Structures are given as structure tokens and as C-alpha cells.
């Protein structure tokens, strides 16, 4: 029987980092809306995780990480809206898209991203974690410390609100 997995093991730490860092950054960004602060908090919280690696059990490392990152972020002043980037439509046959179509598409995308950024914080966070980061409801519930049912309600509300904001286009 080998030793239990430990976050102090450099390889474990690296793979733990690769598994969680990107999602954590997205989460903080969606939640607090300041991209630079999100990156700083990710960096700082991993440094602290490393410093305290001997005290943190491998199984609880993730919640430890999120707790620290959230604490680091909360104290900061809330920043503006989240700015969202999107893929431009892949066009293999270029001529099939008229400039008007491209423009309409762009307008619609702007509308959608703006509406998402103006969602209330909780709704925005849940919506983006589910739709963009593809995190299932139970995992989002775990991160946010609420029930799955609450996440379902937030998702429903977010969609209703987006539909209303965007209107009939």
C-alpha cells in the first residue's frame, strides 16, 4: 500500500493545477467581473495551497482552493461588467455569408453577451459556469454552497431574463 496522495508531491500539485486553475479563473471572473484580479487570486491561492500542502488533505484541496480564492476576491471592490468573447462563425465557404448576415449575427451576439453580463451576479455565475464551462448543476451547487434545486431555479430565471432582454430578433 502506497502513501496517500499528497498535494505536496510536485507532480500531484502540477496536475491538480492543470485540472483546476482554468475553471477557477473563469469562476472568479464570472463572479466578480475583474479579469486581472481573478488571475492574481488564482496565482495567490495556489501559492498558499502549496505553502499549506502538508495541512490540506488531498480530497479537500479543491474546496480549500476555492475558499481562499473567494476570500481573496471578496475584499476587492466589485468591478464593472464581465466582457465575453465569442468564436466568430467558422466560414468554410466564404461567399455563402453576405455582409448583412455577418453584421446581423454580430449584432445578435453583442446583444446576447451584453444581456449575460448584466444578469444579477448569482445568475450570471451559474449560467456561465454551466453553459460556457460545461459544469453540471451538482458541481456548481457544490462550489456555490447551495442546493441543486437552487441552481435549477437560478438557471431558469437567468434564461427568462435573457429572453426578455434580447427580445424578438
Amino acid at each position, binding site marked *: 500500500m502506497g502513501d496517500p496522495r499528497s498535494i505536496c508531491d510536485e507532480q500531484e500539485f*502540477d496536475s491538480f*493545477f*492543470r485540472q483546476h*486553475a*482554468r475553471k477557477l*479563473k*473563469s469562476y472568479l*471572473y464570472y463572479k466578480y467581473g475583474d*479579469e486581472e484580479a*481573478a*488571475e492574481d487570486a*488564482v*496565482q495567490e491561492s*495556489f*501559492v498558499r495551497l*502549496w*505553502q499549506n500542502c502538508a495541512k490540506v488533505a488531498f480530497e479537500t484541496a479543491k474546496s480549500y482552493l476555492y475558499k481562499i480564492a473567494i476570500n481573496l476576491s471578496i475584499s476587492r471592490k466589485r468591478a464593472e461588467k464581465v466582457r*465575453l*468573447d*465569442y*468564436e*466568430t*462563425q467558422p466560414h*468554410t465557404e*466564404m461567399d455563402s455569408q453576405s455582409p448583412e448576415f455577418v453584421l446581423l449575427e454580430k449584432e*445578435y*451576439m453583442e446583444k*446576447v*453577451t451584453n444581456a*449575460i453580463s448584466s444578469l444579477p451576479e448569482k445568475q450570471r455565475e451559474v449560467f*456561465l459556469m*454551466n*453553459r*460556457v*464551462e460545461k459544469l453540471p*448543476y451538482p458541481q456548481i451547487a457544490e462550489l456555490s454552497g447551495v442546493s441543486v*434545486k437552487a*441552481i*435549477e*431555479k437560478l*438557471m*431558469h*430565471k437567468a*434564461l*427568462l431574463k*435573457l*429572453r426578455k432582454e*434580447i427580445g*424578438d430578433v
Partner: protein
Amino acid sequence: MKSEKDDTFLSRWLQNQLSDKERKEFEASADFAHYQKLLKATDRIKSPAFDEEVTLARIKAGRGAKVVSMSPNRLWTYGIAASIVLLLGFFLLFQQLPGSPEKVLTGFGEQKTILLPDGSEMILNAKSQAVYYPKRWAKKRKLNLEGEGFFSVEKGATFEVETTQGVVTVLGTMFNVRSINDYFEVTCSEGKVRVSMGKEEYILTSGMKFSVGKNLKAEVSNEAVSKPAWLSGKSTFTSVPIAVILEALQNQYNIEFTGKIPLENQLFTGSFPHDNLQVALQVVFEPLQLRYQIKGDRTVELQD
């Protein structure tokens, strides 16, 4: 609409948890198409850019500092002190020698982050090469660069980047050096750097760019960027000869251009992504009104 009474309706729809009856009713409603379009649009939203390797390197740099600052157990102190005296003799002896060079290479489309011995950071863009002497680093911070690199330099003694065209000298700053064929470009994002080419010298401060090329006179211009775009997955150029763009495309995508290289004296301003060759070619060649054809796997033929 049903979804207004039932407070998880849309959520269950997303999860495919509606009953057949509910689903059929919803799909027949006018709202359905709107929600579908909305979801299709949200699928195109990208998660914010995040450079894992750079962040991991920074975290590790921070860790190193922690190890140094740990106070040694007292019992060990005298032993360590004695060993240091002994080791110091050898160390001083070896420090005189440059030691073996460290060579860092990047392949097509590859980027690498290197933490230099003093904690300064170098990020190499695709198809580039840097050579330095780790053992001599404490005495002389100097490296040789071919290709493109971004440097974030720790405060300290002079830091030098040698290229075939000229030398860039700094004291603690962030800057980008692009040395592709005859083209030489230095952009300073923070602090102050000096570019020397033979007898000529140029001093750049934050937000300034120096460039020179085959048919380009040496020039200092403004370029307000905090970090070069290639660190976030695209390459950006301002008034750069076409040949340099073609070289950069080749380095990024491991492709080869055939046919006549056109418009040798024309300059290009714009950027191309690193993850999509089709788009990259399109955004470079369309503004220039050049026709091209992708032949096979790795060849792009330029047409008149």
C-alpha cells in the same frame, strides 16, 4: 407560458428532463425558437483566456523564494556554515568558467516559458532559439536570441539580449524582441531599454517600439501594449514587411509558401490567430488582395 409558473421549467428543459407532453407543448410555442437561438449563441462564448503554463511558472517562482526564506533548524546551522565555506571555494573557482551553455528551442507553433536563474522570465515564441550560460548568469545576464521572445526582467545588473542585428540592454523591465530574417523589432512594455546597432543607439521607454528592416529605415514609434499578443494566442504586427509575416506564419503553422513572394516592399498591419490556419491565411491575404491556394498538407501556393 408555462415557464412562468414553474420555476425550474427551462432548467429542466436544458437537462432533457421535461415530460413528453411538456416538451411537445414547449416546442410548439413561439418562444421555443428564441431559446434555441439563444443557446446556440451562448455555445459560441469562449471561456476567458488563461495561460496555464505562465501562471504555473510564476507560482513556482514564488515557491522558490519561500524555500530560501525558511529559517534552518538551529542544530544544523554550524554544519551548514562550515560547508558553505568549503563550497564557496569551489563555487568561486567554477564561477570563473562560463560552464556549459543552456539552449532552449521551440518548434513550429510552440511557445515555452523559461525561468532564468535570477527569476527573470523569458517566453519564447514559435521557432525561436535562446542560448545562455546558467553558471555565469549571476555575473553576467546575457543571452543570445534568434526569433522572438518576451522578457520580464528582475531588477539587478544589466540584462542583455544579443541578436544578429543588434543588442538590447536593460535594467529591470518588460520588453519584446522580434528578430526575424532581416527584420528587427524591440517593443518596451515597462521600464527602459537601450537598443544598440553598431554605433547607433536608441533608448526606448514604456510604450515605445523600435523597428528596422531590409527596406525599412530605423524608426522609433509609439506602441502602447502591455504584453505582446502572441502570448494570448495571436500574432500582431504594425507596419511590418510582408516577408516577415510569411515567416511568422510558417513558424507558427509549419507550412511552406511557394510561388512568387509578392509585394516585397508593402507593409502589413494586423494580426492572425495561432489556432486556425484557414482564418490566419484569410486575415493576412485578403486585405492585401492576394490569392492563394492550400496544396496538400503543408504547402500554400501564392498566386498572381
